[in-house]
């Protein structure tokens, strides 16, 4: 009986577009859904530091090195804001990290692809952050207050991320033949995985029913993906990059781009652990976590002595 009252009261709040705050009563399924989504989001920010981090020591100018460092540092910060938001739901960061290591919690598939050349740093900023921004902008209006507030802060900081990536691509497309090839090659490798970031087609999306009723999700996977494609195609054209999709064309009636089918085989394979970098990313994270244990223990021991 109790839970029925809770959820009808809860749903009426949601229907009025009111935010849900940590101490408000909420259905367990809402809490669980949020924990899964926010922690996955947080882990993505943190794991995403690895492919870009791979190029910090090789960044080709002092300016580029500072931009990249500041960008990756932001991503770490985003991870932190999101862990903070998830912690208000009663899960500890320690537990979230355990779930990441056990495989129970996931992170965005995109970071299971390798950053092979400097152009990949451009492609990641432009396409991967670009895709993430489309999603994050819509999440600023998500129903859970701490998550929405984290998203507002994150969107503000994200604004330079996509630009720095596009700037790298632009410079390379204005550069030597070798640079142009490098840029197009990165485009070819990152385009499709970027489209996969929005998840399966709406028709194959298992969790989205509740997510919409609870206003955790405000726009569908396909809607967001379309939005991303429509704005990115023009940006590619301006700098002379070819989108690696022979079926891509402007649909005059729908006023949007038609595109080819995503390789869902690959999508599933990578999600299930068999992408180029899945093992490497997890090993790195687990190794660093284990390496840091003695430092954290020392800090705790020292703090205890101070009392």
């Amino acid at each position, binding site marked *: 009986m109790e839970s029925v009252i809770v959820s009808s009261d809860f749903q009426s709040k949601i229907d009025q577009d009111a935010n849900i705050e940590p101490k408000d009563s909420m259905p367990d399924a809402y809490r669980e859904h949020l924990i899964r989504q926010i922690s996955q989001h947080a882990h993505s920010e*943190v794991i995403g*530091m*690895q492919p870009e*981090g791979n190029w*910090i*020591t*090789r960044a*080709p*100018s*002092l*300016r*580029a*090195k*500072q931009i990249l*460092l*500041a960008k*990756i*540092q932001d991503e*770490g*910060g985003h*991870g*932190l804001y999101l*862990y903070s938001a998830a912690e208000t739901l009663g899960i500890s960061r320690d537990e979230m990290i355990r779930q990441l290591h056990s495989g129970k919690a996931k992170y965005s598939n995109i970071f299971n692809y390798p950053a092979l050349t*400097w152009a990949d740093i451009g492609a990641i900023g432009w396409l991967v952050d670009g895709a993430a921004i489309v999603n994050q902008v819509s999440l600023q209006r998500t129903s859970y207050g701490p998550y929405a507030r984290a998203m507002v802060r994150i969107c503000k900081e994200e604004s330079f991320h996509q630009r720095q990536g596009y700037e*790298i691509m632009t*410079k*390379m497309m204005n*550069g*030597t033949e*070798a*640079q142009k090839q490098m840029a197009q090659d990165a485009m070819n490798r990152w385009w499709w995985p970027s489209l996969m970031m929005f998840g399966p087609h709406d028709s194959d999306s298992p969790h989205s029913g509740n997510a919409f009723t609870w206003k955790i999700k405000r726009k569908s996977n396909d809607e967001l993906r379309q939005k991303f494609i429509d704005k990115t195609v023009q940006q590619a054209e301006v700098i002379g990059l070819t989108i690696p999709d022979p079926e891509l064309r402007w649909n005059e009636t729908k006023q949007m781009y038609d595109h080819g089918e995503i390789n869902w085989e690959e999508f599933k394979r990578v999600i299930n652990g068999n992408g180029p970098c899945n093992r490497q990313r997890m090993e*790195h994270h687990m190794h*660093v976590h284990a*390496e*840091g*244990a*003695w*430092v*954290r*223990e*020392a*800090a*705790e*021991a*020292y703090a205890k*002595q101070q009392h």
Partner: protein
Amino acid sequence: MMNKQEAIFKYLVRLGDCALIHGHRLSEWCSRGPILEEDLALTNMALDNIGRAQAFLKYAAEVQGNGLSEDDLAYKRDERAFYNNLLTELPIGDFAFTIAKQLLLSVFENIQMQALCKSADATIAGIAAKSHKEVRYHLTHARDWTMRLGKGTLESNTRLQQAFNQLWMYTGELFEMYEEDAILNKQGIAIDLNELKTPYYNTITSILNDSNIKMPVADYMQTGSRKGIHTEYLGHILSEMQYLQRAYPDAKW
């Protein structure tokens, strides 16, 4: 004998290289911090250093006046033309090693930058003033962690003690003066590094005492960077850092 212009150039490159190589090493911590918060702290300090390197090298390029940029200096110079202190180029090691290195460098830079704020060269004084603020924070961070690790657990104390023992022989070089110092000290542009020695070792001694770390013994001090003679580590840093610029000499990034 070097002229004044050459002396200023070398001095600026020394300052710039220290920050560049130190920042490079700190940036290696990205995604490797013992806790996420610390990851952000270490990258912040890396950013401070690379920013400082950019400022000093830019000025060095201006002084040299042959149309090169700060990037040319950072990315196209050979190993023997780098003048950073050896301490900055040593590998990051474990967190204790990095903290010990941070302490030994930031105590030095704190007094160095403070003194350089009074340089007769206004540009140097300006960069030093900005850097001094940053370095004071680095020092606070390093001092707090030295205390935590020194007093934390037996393991952390042992690791930190070993780190200080290993790093100690590189501290003497911080105070080594060379041709350029002699020329620039007379004009009030550079500072007398001998005068920094006592406050430096006093500060280090008191922090180590407070942290249950024994003072390492100085039976030998390794130097060489004033002549561009480095440890074997620098070559590897440069081959990584300079890779794109060297592989694609006519490309702009």
